[in-house]
C-alpha cells in the first residue's frame, strides 16, 4: 500500500502544516479529523442555540397564559427548536463528529474513501445551516409548522416555510453524501487483515447508520420538494381542496423520519458499546449479536413509520401491522442492553466519567425505549399521542440517549482528539447535576402527558401546572450542569495536562497511536486483532 516512505518524525494533525495557512487550513482541509472537529464546533454552537430556545419554551410554560411571549412566537420557537435539534444537531451529530474522526482510525485507514467529498458535505452542511437560520429572520417570520411540516397547514401558513424546508433538503443532501462516504470507506479501506467481523462495533453502528442515511433521506428530499412546489404552484398533492391527500404527506414524511430516529441512536449505541468494554477491561459480550442487531434495527426500522400515524385515520390493517412491527424492532435494542450488562459482569469496573455517562445512558435509554413501547401499543398510543408524553419519550431517548452518548464520547475520546486531559472531579460533578436536572425536566412530562396535556400548547389548564413548574426547574439545573461540563472540557482541551496515548487502557486501534494522532493516523504498521476487544 505504501510506497518507500522514509521514517518521518511524528507531527500531530493539529500542528501539521498543509497547503493552506491559518483559518484556511481548516476550511479547506480534507483531513477527516479536522473535518470532524469542524462539525463538532458547529454542532455544539447549534445545540446551544436550540437549548436556549428550549429554555425559553420552559419559561413560557411555567404558568398558564402568556408569560414571556405571544403564541405565534412560541409556535415559531418550538418549530425552530425542533428543526435545529433534529436536522442540524442529532441527525448528523455523532456520525459526522465521531464517525469522521474515529471511523477511519478504528478500521486502520488513513482517511475516508472520498476526502474531497467529505469536505464538500461539510460545506453544504454549513450552507444548509445558514439557510435554516436565515429563514428565521426573513420577512415572513419563522416557520410555525412544527418540525414535521404537516400539510395542509404547512402549505397554507403565511410564514417562511419554503426556506426552512429547502434548508432541510440541503442538510439531507449532506447527510446522504456522508453516508455514502462511510459505506465505501468501510468496504474498501479496512486495514489488510481486518474482516467485517473484526471491526470495532462503533464501525458497525456507523455502517448501519450510513445505509439508513443513504436510503431514507432521498424520500424526505423529494417530499420536501413536493411541498415547496405545492406552495409555489398549488400542484395539489397534499391539499384536499385540490384532491390531494394530507395523510400521504404524513406517510412520506415518516418513511424518512422514523428511520431518521435510528440514524440518531445507532451511533450512540455504538459508542456505548465502545465505552463499556474499555472501562470493564473485558471483552464485549456477544460481539456478533450486537453487530447484527445494529443491522436489524436499521432494516426493520424502515418498515414501522406508521406508528406516528395511529390516529390519522389509517386502515385498521395498517394500524395493527405497524404496531406489531414497532414492537419487534424494540427487541434488537433490548438485546444490546442485555449484552452491555453481561459485559459488566465480572469486569474490572473503573468509574471514570465516560463510564458514568454510559451507565446513565442505559438508565435513560431504558426509560425512553420502554415508553416507546407504550407509544407503540395502539390502545395506549391513542391516549398519549400528541401529548407531552411523546415529548418526554423523545427527549429521554434523544437527549438522554444520543445526548448522553455524545457527552460520554467526548469524555472518552477528548484525550485522543486534543492530546490533553480534563479534570475528572469536575466532570463527575457535572455529570451528577446533568443527570438530576435531566430527570426533573422530562419525567413530569410523562405524567401530565398521560393526564392529557397536548403538545405544542402555548397555554394549558391549571391542573397541569405542578408538572410544568418542576419541569422548568429541572431545565435550569440541567443547563447549569451542562455549562460546567462544557467549561471543563474546553479548559481541558486547551490547557489540560498532556494525555498519554492510551489513558483508559483501551484495546481498539485508536489507542495504539499517539495522542493526538498524526496526519496519516498510522505511521507504523499495525497488528489487527481478530477480536478488537481483546483484554487477555
Amino acid at each position, binding site marked *: 500500500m505504501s510506497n518507500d516512505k522514509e521514517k518521518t518524525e511524528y507531527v500531530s494533525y493539529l500542528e501539521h502544516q498543509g497547503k493552506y495557512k491559518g483559518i484556511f487550513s481548516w476550511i479547506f482541509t480534507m483531513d477527516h479529523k479536522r473535518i470532524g472537529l469542524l462539525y463538532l464546533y458547529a454542532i455544539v454552537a447549534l445545540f446551544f442555540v436550540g437549548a436556549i430556545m428550549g429554555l425559553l419554551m420552559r419559561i413560557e410554560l411555567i404558568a398558564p397564559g402568556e408569560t414571556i411571549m405571544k403564541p405565534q412566537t412560541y409556535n415559531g420557537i418550538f418549530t425552530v427548536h425542533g428543526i435545529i435539534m433534529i436536522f442540524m444537531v442529532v441527525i448528523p451529530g455523532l456520525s459526522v463528529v465521531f464517525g469522521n474522526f474515529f471511523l477511519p482510525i478504528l478500521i486502520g485507514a488513513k482517511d475516508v474513501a472520498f476526502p474531497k467529498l467529505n469536505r464538500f458535505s461539510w460545506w453544504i452542511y454549513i450552507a444548509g445551516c445558514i439557510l435554516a437560520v436565515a429563514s428565521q429572520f426573513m420577512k415572513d417570520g419563522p416557520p410555525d409548522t412544527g418540525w414535521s411540516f404537516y400539510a395542509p397547514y404547512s402549505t397554507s401558513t403565511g410564514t417562511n416555510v419554503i426556506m426552512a424546508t429547502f434548508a432541510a433538503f440541503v442538510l439531507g443532501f449532506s447527510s446522504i453524501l456522508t453516508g455514502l462516504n462511510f459505506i465505501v470507506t468501510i468496504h474498501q479501506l479496512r486495514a489488510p487483515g481486518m474482516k467485517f467481523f473484526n471491526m470495532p462495533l462503533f464501525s458497525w453502528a456507523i455502517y448501519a447508520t450510513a445505509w439508513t442515511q443513504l436510503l431514507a433521506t432521498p424520500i424526505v428530499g423529494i417530499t420536501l420538494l413536493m411541498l415547496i412546489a405545492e406552495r409555489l404552484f398549488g400542484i395539489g398533492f397534499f391539499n384536499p381542496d385540490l384532491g390531494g391527500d394530507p*395523510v400521504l404527506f404524513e*406517510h412520506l414524511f415518516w*418513511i424518512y423520519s422514523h428511520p431518521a430516529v435510528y440514524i440518531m441512536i445507532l451511533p450512540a449505541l455504538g459508542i456505548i458499546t465502545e465505552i463499556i468494554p474499555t472501562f470493564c477491561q473485558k471483552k464485549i459480550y456477544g460481539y456478533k449479536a450486537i453487530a447484527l442487531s445494529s443491522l436489524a434495527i436499521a432494516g426493520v426500522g*424502515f*418498515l414501522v413509520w*406508521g406508528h406516528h400515524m395511529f390516529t390519522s385515520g*389509517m*386502515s*385498521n*390493517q395498517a394500524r395493527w401491522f405497524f404496531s406489531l412491527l414497532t414492537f419487534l424492532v424494540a427487541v434488537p435494542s433490548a438485546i444490546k442492553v442485555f449484552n452491555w450488562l453481561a459485559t459488566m459482569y465480572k469486569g474490572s469496573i473503573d468509574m471514570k466519567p465516560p463510564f458514568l455517562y454510559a451507565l446513565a445512558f442505559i438508565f435513560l435509554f431504558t426509560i425512553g425505549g420502554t415508553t416507546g413501547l407504550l407509544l407503540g401499543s395502539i390502545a395506549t398510543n391513542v391516549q398519549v399521542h400528541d401529548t407531552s408524553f411523546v415529548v418526554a419519550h423523545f427527549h429521554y431517548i434523544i437527549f438522554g440517549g444520543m445526548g448522553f452518548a455524545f457527552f460520554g464520547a467526548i469524555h472518552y475520546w477528548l484525550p485522543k482528539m486534543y492530546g490533553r486531559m480534563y479534570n475528572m472531579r469536575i466532570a463527575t460533578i457535572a455529570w451528577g447535576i446533568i443527570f438530576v436536572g435531566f430527570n426533573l425536566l422530562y419525567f413530569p412530562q410523562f405524567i401530565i402527558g398521560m393526564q392529557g396535556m397536548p403538545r405544542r400548547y402555548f397555554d394549558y389548564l391549571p391542573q397541569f401546572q405542578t408538572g410544568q413548574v418542576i419541569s422548568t426547574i429541572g431545565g435550569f439545573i440541567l443547563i447549569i450542569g451542562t455549562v460546567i461540563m462544557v467549561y471543563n472540557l474546553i479548559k481541558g482541551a486547551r490547557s489540560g495536562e498532556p494525555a498519554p496515548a492510551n489513558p483508559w487502557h483501551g484495546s481498539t486501534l485508536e489507542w495504539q497511536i499517539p495522542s493526538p494522532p498524526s496526519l496519516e493516523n498510522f505511521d507504523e504498521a499495525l497488528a489487527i486483532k481478530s477480536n478488537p476487544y481483546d483484554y487477555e
Partner: protein
Amino acid sequence: MANNVSHITEYKVLGKVFLVLLFLTFLTITVTSFELAAFSVTVALLIAGVKGFMILTYFMHLKYESLLLRILVALIFVLYALVVLITFIDYAYR
C-alpha cells in the same frame, strides 16, 4: 491499490440488447393499446421490469460485478417494494 480490470462488453452484445429493448418497447405500446383493462398495468409494468433488468445486467454490467453488489441492488428493489406494499396496506383497506 490494484486497478480493477473490468469486464469488457462486446459491441455485438450491446447491440443485441438494444434490439431486444426496442422490441419490448414496441410490445408495450401495442399491448397497452388493446383494452386489457386491469391487465394492462400489470403487463406494462412487467415489460418495464424486464427492460430494467436488461439494462441493469448488461448496460450497467451487473452481470460481471461482484455478488455483493448484485445482492445490494436486489435488496434496494425489495426494500422499495416493501415500502410501497406497506403504504398500500393503508390505502387498499381504507
